[in-house]
């Protein structure tokens, strides 16, 4: 019964709050009226009776509220009241609201995005069952387990993995009846899907039982995404026969949705058995034990109870056995096991996300300092209001609760705005396809975890800084404050607020400094000497295997392509390079080379480990790589001619002392071939922009043919016209040969990617830092001007000059800005060392950066103090003094 009554009263409160309030008011007023009637009857005049009645009643608002509470449901009711009141108050101070919300939104947004990236790239595992026990061998430049025979040995000899699967990437022409299109796939071991414990969404997968020797399993499994986009969910696709590089393959199944292969960044279009790799690669890469091209990564589930350390030791003991058994082919190195999917990028990705987290943390810290300052200033501003409310009988808890409500409202709005921005940004990132011809797969979809983190961060920082004014409220003596008025003290000592502002500006200066260092590094790397000139060059990527060429047909066709390009009007030079030219797809091959007199050609006796390229005559001219000594290749350096090489300056210097000395000398390849050096070219960059200068050598492509090559076409013509002309020439030569055509600069995007992303991230963080410091300084300056309006008015009335007024009004803000900036600059320069690993040429001792930071912070200060300064200068002492 009483519970029912309680519910009724709560429900009544919730659903008819205004009615209840009116009723309570009516009752309390009726009480006062009845009392006044009595007093009047006892002889008091009407007005006096009413006054006495009200006094005797006591604090009307207080009892009204307490009555409310007694009626139940009051927590919600008072919270709603707090909410309404807070919203009203906030609406009245839009400047504060805007500053606080922007600060929070920036910090929350930045952190949500960075957390999303970390979640997608580091925390989240591959989208396969039990991914947490899946580990793989790390890819490396030395022949480790990167050959098929070594993989087989590792698979059969290890004791740590339940089973071991392997894959390599293949790039093929897929012909479904019309013109062939370029596709990228995985050639995998037969047990690939079994090891991953996956089930097909359609048809079947291939298994070890399908492998019966070379080219015995012409099957392919499509990824769900490729099936969806290119076969339009056609369930009849299973059993269809298509051509991969002119070889018939049967589509036997479609993978599960959401499975993008076992590399985090690049999605394949299909899977095929690795035993058929010769058909799509054009050459057999499976038999050579010393090859690094057979296997990209071998991986499997660790057996239950086996630790990562035990597994690594086990794998390395197999490696030691292989190095002993096959010394000529197996350069022993310590293999590290990494999380499948990240294999070769694990370290870099972790470093990158850790650096981002650090920066985002700094942003958050700066934002918190900013909020702290804002709230503290506001609390000081409102001390009079709080005092009045206390004096009128409001309880301290009630006032605190209301202040916290304000903080929470700001947090929630800030979080909402920040989250909205971050969701948009993360969506963009996950759909991002920055590279031509590669399916980038960045699984950074915003999910519940990210929302949770953002809201938690927002509430935490909101509460933390909503509490700043609490001390002031609790200590407040209403009488003193009301008496003293708002322009009470002019503090000269350093306050908490000053410290917060210095801290915040210092953090922001760190961000601004790092972003400037990064931007400067990127600009420098764009203008660095690559050892070739990528401007005005078109690259044409073809794979002869895709059109079914074999043996001697390959160089003959490639020669015809070069000749065809030369006939295009406006084309200056045409060269050709096997595989990829320098800095394309961060793919380059290193070879062990030996001195001429070396007899034991095992890896440990190598004289150098240079990058190796195979190029056509005129390649150096097409690439604008200058020849320092000797001669270029000619079309006579063919199969039957003596083997010749062109080396770079570093190679010549390292082995022969000087470029001039090298010409006419010999070195040996690992297979024992003697090679004559006929020319020396300038140094360059080969694999990455940040690499140390490495040796490199070039062989004649006629002497070392390869199916995959890139034409290097130099021309001043408009890229689009040129592309069309190249396409039509190729079409005339062989209509069935897919070609990927793009500018060299566009292909450089991949190698620029880390620097670009880092610069972009740092740039954004720097921008956020700059905005935060503007808000912080603006808040501080505006506050100090508004606090001292009267003083400034008196000064102006007494004849102060404009500069003196400005100094009084803003001197302190400017001083804090200077201290903070210098601190931040020094910290930022120290942090630059960390940047050096990602950003090319990041150096702290760069006068441009130093000057840039100083100018940037000064500009920020100017922007932030402009409005307060204008306000201080436009003061009219007459109006001001009259008002106060």
């Amino acid at each position, binding site marked *: 019964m009483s519970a029912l*009554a309680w519910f009724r009263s709560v429900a009544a409160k919730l659903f008819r709050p205004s009615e209840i309030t009116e009723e309570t008011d009516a*009752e309390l007023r009726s*009480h006062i009226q009845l009392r006044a009637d009595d007093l009047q009857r006892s002889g008091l005049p009407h007005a006096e009776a009413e006054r006495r009645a009200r006094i005797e*009643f006591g604090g*009307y608002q*207080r009892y009204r509220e307490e009555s409310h509470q*007694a009626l139940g449901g009051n927590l919600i009711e008072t919270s709603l009241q707090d909410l309404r009141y807070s919203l009203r108050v906030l609406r009245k101070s839009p400047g504060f609201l805007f500053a606080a919300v922007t600060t929070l939104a920036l910090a929350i947004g930045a952190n949500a995005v960075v957390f999303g990236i970390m979640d997608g790239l580091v925390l989240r595992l591959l989208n396969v069952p039990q991914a947490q026990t899946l580990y793989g061998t790390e890819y490396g430049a030395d022949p480790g387990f990167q050959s098929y025979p070594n993989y087989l040995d590792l698979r059969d000899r290890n004791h740590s993995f339940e089973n071991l699967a392997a894959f390599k990437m293949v790039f093929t022409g897929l012909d479904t009846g019309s013109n062939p299109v370029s596709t990228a796939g995985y050639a995998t071991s037969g047990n690939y899907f079994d090891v991953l414990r996956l089930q097909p969404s359609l048809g079947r997968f291939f298994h070890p039982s399908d492998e019966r020797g070379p080219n015995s399993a012409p099957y392919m499994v499509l990824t769900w995404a490729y099936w969806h986009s290119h076969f339009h969910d056609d369930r009849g696709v299973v059993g269809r026969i298509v051509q991969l590089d002119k070889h018939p393959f049967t589509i036997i199944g479609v993978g599960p949705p959401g499975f993008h292969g076992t590399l985090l960044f690049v999605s394949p279009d299909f899977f095929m058995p690795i035993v058929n790799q010769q058909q799509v690669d054009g050459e057999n890469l499976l038999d050579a034990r010393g090859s690094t091209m057979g296997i990209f990564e071998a991986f499997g589930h660790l057996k239950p109870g086996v630790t990562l350390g035990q597994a690594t030791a086990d794998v390395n003991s197999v490696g030691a056995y292989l190095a002993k058994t096959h010394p000529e082919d197996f350069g022993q190195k310590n293999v590290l096991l990494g999380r499948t999917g990240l294999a070769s990028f694990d370290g870099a990705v972790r470093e990158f996300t850790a650096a981002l987290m650090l920066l985002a943390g700094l942003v958050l810290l700066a934002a918190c300092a900013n909020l702290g300052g804002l709230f503290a200033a506001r609390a000081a501003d409102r001390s009079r209001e709080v005092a009045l409310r206390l004096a009128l009988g409001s309880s301290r808890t009630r006032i605190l609760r209301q202040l916290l409500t304000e903080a929470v409202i700001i947090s929630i709005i800030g979080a909402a705005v920040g989250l909205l921005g971050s969701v948009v940004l993360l969506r963009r990132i996950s759909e991002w396809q920055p590279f031509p011809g590669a399916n980038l797969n960045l699984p950074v979809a915003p999910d519940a975890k990210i929302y949770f983190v953002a809201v938690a961060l927002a509430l935490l920082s909101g509460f933390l800084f909503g509490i700043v004014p609490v001390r002031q409220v609790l200590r407040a003596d209403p009488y003193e404050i009301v008496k003293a008025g708002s322009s009470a003290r002019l503090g000269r000592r350093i306050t908490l607020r000053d410290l917060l502002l210095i801290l915040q500006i210092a953090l922001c200066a760190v961000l601004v400094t790092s972003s400037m260092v990064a931007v400067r590094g990127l600009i420098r790397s764009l203008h660095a000497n690559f050892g070739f000139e990528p401007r005005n060059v078109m690259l044409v990527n073809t794979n002869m295997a895709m059109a079914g060429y074999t043996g001697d047909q390959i160089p003959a066709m490639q020669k015809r392509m070069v000749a065809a390009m030369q006939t295009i009007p406006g084309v200056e030079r045409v060269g050709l390079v096997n595989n990829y030219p320098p800095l394309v797809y961060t793919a380059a091959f290193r070879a062990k080379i030996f001195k001429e007199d070396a007899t034991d050609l095992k890896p440990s006796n190598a004289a150098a480990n240079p990058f190796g390229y195979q190029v056509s005559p005129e390649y150096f001219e097409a690439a604008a790589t200058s020849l320092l000594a000797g001669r270029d290749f000619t079309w006579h350096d063919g199969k039957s001619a003596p083997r010749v090489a062109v080396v770079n300056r570093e190679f010549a210097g390292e082995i022969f002392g000087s470029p001039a000395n090298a010409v006419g000398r010999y070195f040996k390849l690992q297979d024992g071939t003697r090679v004559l050096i006929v020319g020396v070219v300038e140094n360059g960059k080969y694999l990455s922009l940040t690499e140390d200068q490495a040796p490199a050598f070039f062989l004649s492509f006629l002497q070392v043919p390869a199916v995959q090559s890139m034409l290097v076409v130099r021309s001043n013509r408009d890229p689009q016209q040129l592309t069309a002309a190249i396409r039509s020439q190729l079409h005339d030569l062989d209509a069935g040969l897919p070609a990927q055509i793009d500018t060299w600069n566009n292909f450089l995007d991949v190698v620029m990617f880390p620097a670009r992303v880092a610069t972009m991230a740092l740039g954004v963080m720097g921008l956020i830092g700059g905005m935060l410091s503007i808000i912080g300084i603006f808040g501080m300056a505006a506050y100090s001007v508004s606090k001292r309006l009267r003083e400034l008015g008196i000064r102006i009335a007494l004849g102060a000059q404009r500069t003196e007024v400005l100094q009084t009004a803003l001197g302190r803000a400017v001083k804090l800005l200077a201290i903070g900036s210098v601190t931040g600059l020094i910290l930022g320069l120290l942090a630059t060392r960390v940047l050096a690993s990602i950003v090319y040429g990041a150096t702290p001792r760069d006068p441009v950066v130093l000057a840039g930071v100083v100018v940037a912070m000064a500009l920020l200060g100017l922007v932030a103090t402009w409005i307060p300064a204008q306000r201080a200068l436009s003061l009219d002492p007459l109006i001001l003094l009259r008002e106060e």
Partner: protein
Amino acid sequence: MSGEAQILPGTLDLLILKAVSLGPLHGYGVLLRIGQISDSALLIEQGALYPALFRLVRQGLLKASWGTSENNRRAKFYELTAAGRKRFREETEGWNRLATAMASALAAQAEEV
């Protein structure tokens, strides 16, 4: 102050129940009745009555309805519910027991211990 006792916590509720048990009353009437029956020995600020009244309503001990006062003012009248009458009896007994016990304890002489 010596002639007027500050009200003991918890006793206001009982006094209200007592006042209302003698017949329906509006808030101001409750106040007058308490002053009357306690010989003006109990002192509360007038407004403090209402949170207590509302609490009792919420507990289901009192019910309220609007009516007209003796001098034709609109006022809200309170009366006991069945639960209220029961609670009033219990609390009265409890209070009497406590008061008797306290009285005899305070009257005790040294030799009786």
